[in-house]
C-alpha cells in the first residue's frame, strides 16, 4: 500500500541524493518524490510516496531519522491531509475535437494552458484519484505527453509541526507485533 511521508530536511547539497539512496539501499519502492523550499530558510520539504506496508513505513521513517540532515518525518497516510498533484497533458487534437476536450476540461475543473494548430496543453491539479481519472479520460484523444509533479501533502488544521519530534515510541504499528504474537501460546 502507498504511504505518504513528509520529510523536512536541511537545504544542503546532496541531501536529495542521501534520501533517494536510502530508499534504494533499503529496497523501498518510491512511487513519487517531490522536493521544494518551505517558509523557513534553509529547510526543504520532501513528499515521498512509498509502496510498502505499515511496518515498512515505520522502518522507512526510522531510517530517514538516521540521516543527519533530516529534521523531521511525518507519516500523513492516515491523517486528514490535503494531497495534491499537478499534471500537464499535451493532446494532439483536430479542430473538431476541441469542443469535446474543452467540455471535459470543465467537468474536471482543469484548464487549458496552451493551444496551437494541432495540439493543446491541459493542466489539472487535484488528488491522485482525480488526476488519474482525468488522464484516463483524455486517453480518448491522442495523448502526446504527460508530465506529473508527484504528490505534495499538507495536514489539515492549524497545528504547526515542530522541527524536533518528541520521544520515539516503540516504532510499532498501531495494530502491530504485540497483538500478532498474542495469539501464540506461551508454552512450548
Amino acid at each position, binding site marked *: 500500500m502507498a504511504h505518504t511521508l513528509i520529510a523536512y*530536511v*536541511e537545504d544542503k*547539497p*546532496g541531501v536529495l*541524493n*542521501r534520501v533517494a*539512496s536510502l530508499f534504494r*539501499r533499503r529496497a523501498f519502492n518510491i512511487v513519487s518524490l517531490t522536493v521544494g523550499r518551505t517558509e523557513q530558510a534553509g529547510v526543504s520539504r520532501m513528499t515521498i510516496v512509498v509502496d510498502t506496508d505499515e*511496518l515498512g513505513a*515505520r*522502518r522507512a521513517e*526510522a*531510517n530517514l*531519522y*538516521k*540521516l*543527519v*540532515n*533530516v*529534521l523531521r518525518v511525518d507519516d500523513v497516510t492516515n491523517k486528514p491531509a490535503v494531497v495534491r498533484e499537478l499534471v500537464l497533458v499535451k493532446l494532439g487534437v483536430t479542430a473538431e475535437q476541441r469542443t469535446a476536450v474543452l467540455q471535459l476540461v470543465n467537468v474536471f475543473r482543469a484548464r487549458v494552458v496552451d493551444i496551437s494548430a494541432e495540439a493543446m496543453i491541459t493542466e489539472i491539479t487535484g488528488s491522485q484519484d482525480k488526476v488519474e481519472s482525468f488522464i484516463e479520460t483524455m486517453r480518448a484523444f491522442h495523448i502526446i505527453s504527460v508530465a506529473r509533479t508527484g504528490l505534495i501533502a499538507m495536514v489539515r488544521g492549524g497545528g504547526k509541526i515542530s*522541527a*524536533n519530534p518528541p*520521544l*520515539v*515510541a*516503540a*516504532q*510499532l504499528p498501531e495494530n*502491530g*507485533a*504485540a497483538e*500478532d*504474537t498474542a495469539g*501464540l*501460546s*506461551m*508454552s*512450548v
Partner: protein
Amino acid sequence: MTKLTGAQMIWECLTLEGVEVVFGYPGGAILPTYDAMLGYKIHHVLVRHEQGATHMADGYARASGKVGVAIATSGPGATNMVTGIATAMMDSVPIVCITGQVGSKAIGSDAFQETDVTGVTLPITKHNYLVTRTEDIPRAIKEAFFIARSGRQGPVLVDITKDAQQGSAEFVWEVGPLRLPGYRPDLRTLPSELERALHLINNAERPLILAGHGIISAGARAQVLEFAERAQVPIAMTLLGLGGIPASHGLNLGMMGMHGEAYVNSAIQQADLLLAFGMRFDDRVTGNLKTYAVNARKIHIDIDSSELNKNVRVDVGLVGDLRDVLQELLPGVQSADHSAWLDHIDSMKGDLAVRDIQSLPDTGHLYAAHVINDIWRLTKGNAIVVTDVGQHQMWEAQYYKHDHERTLITSGGLGTMGFALPAAIGAKFACPDREVWVVAGDGGFQMTMAELATIKQEKIKLNIAIINNFYLGMVRQWQEFFYEKRSAAPPLLGPDFVKLAEAFGLRGLRIKQRAELQGLVEEARADSGTVVIDFQVEQEDSVFPMVPAGADLDKMIRRPARDVLIETGADADEWELGA
C-alpha cells in the same frame, strides 16, 4: 588574529579531539596536509595499503573505545578505503577517514585522481562531508568526530579539496553543543514502554538474554550482569558480544547462531522471553526467521530505532543507550528463581566444544581447535585476539574464552578477509602494554600481509598465528557440505610463511605437531619482536556445530562422533579449565 592553512587546521582539530595516532598513506591531493603534519605531535603510521589504514583505525577504535583515524589521498587512495569503511559501518565502529580531493574548481571534470568519494561512500558511512572551503574544515571535523562516537557509532568520512587545505583562514573551534538539528543520537523510549517490558520480564518463565556488541559499545557489562543475576536469566552471546560478559560467568551460555553451541540455539528456540540487548538479529544468529523463537515474547533494546522490527518482530522495543535503558529498567526488575529452566539448559549441553577437542584423535597432526585453545591457556585468556574471517575465526570464538571486554576484535557483519593483521596493528597502538595476537587463515593473511612491513617499521610486537590449512577452509567446508564436495576453489598455494616473515625482517616459526606447540608459542611470546607462526593444521577439518544458512536455528549439523578418545598434548589436565 592568527590565520592557519586548512592543512594546519586538520592537525589542529585532530589534536583538539585528543588524537594521538593516525594511520595513513600520502598522495597528491593530501600532500598539503602531510606537509603540515611535521609541526604536530600526532604520530603518523605509514601503512602499506589504504585498506590497512582503515582496518588499523578500526582495530584501534575497537580496542580503545576511542575514535580511530585514517588518512588517504583522493581517487585510488580513497577507493582503497572502501572495504575498511564498510567493515566499520557493519560493526558500528567509530572511525573518521580524512581524504584529499582534487581542487574545488576541478570537481566534476574527471581531473587526475578525482573520484566522487562522498558519493561512493554514501551508503557505507554514517555520514560524510565534502569540504571545499578552508573555513569549513574545523566544523566538519568536529562534527565528524561527534557523529562517529555518539549514538550508534560508525564511520564518518571528510573529503577535503586540495585548495581548501592550501587556503588560509581564521581558525575557529566552536565550543559548546554543535548545531546539528537533524541529528538525534539520544532518542528515548516512552516510559509506558518500560512498564510493558517490566511486565514481560517479571512474568517470564524461560527468559534468555541475547547479548550483542551494544554491551561493549555502551559499557553496560555491570548493568547486564546485575539484571541477569537478579532475575536469574541465562545469557547467549553474539560473535561481537564475546567478552562483553565474562565467558566464565555461570549464566553465560556462550555463542549463539551458525557456529554457536547447539544447546544455546535450542535454548533460544525454547525460551518464552528473549531480551535482545544491543544486538540486531543478524541472519547469522537467527537462521530461518519463520521458525525463529516462535514461542518467545521479544524485548529489543537498541540505540538505533531502525533496528527494531527490522528482522524480527518484537513485542516491546526500547530505544536508547543500553546502559541507560537498563539503568531505568533495573529498579523494576524483580528477583526470580529460574532454576528449572537453567537446569533444563544444562541438561542439553551434550557435545560441548571443550569436551570435543579433548576427544580429537591423536593423529600426530595439529588441530586448529587445539591451537586456539592452547593459546588461550598459555595467555591465561588475557590477550587481545584479532581474528580474520573463516574457519579459524569460528574456532577462535569457540575455543578462546574471553572474560574481558574489547579482547576479541573481529569483522562480524561484513566478514572481511584481510582484516586481522592491520586491525591488530591498530589494537596494539591503542593498548601498547597488552599482549596482542593475530589469528588469521592462510587465505586472509595473504590479502593484507604487506602490513608486515608496517610492523617492522613501527617496531611493534605482535604474535601472529597463521592457522594454515592450505585451503580457503570455510569455502571448502561449504563445498563439502552443500555442493557435494565439488571443489571449485582448489587448495590454496601460499608462500613459505617463515621465509616470508624473515624477508620482512621478522621472526618466523613453524609448528606441525602439538608436542612442539607450548615451547614454541612461549618462545614467540618472549621474543621482543613480532613473530609469525605458521601453524600447519589438519587440512580438511570442519567447524561444528553448524546451522546451514537459512535453516531452522535448532536444526544443526552436529559434531561427528569421534571413535577414538585420546587426550593429547602436554597439559591435558588443564583442559578442565574450560569445561
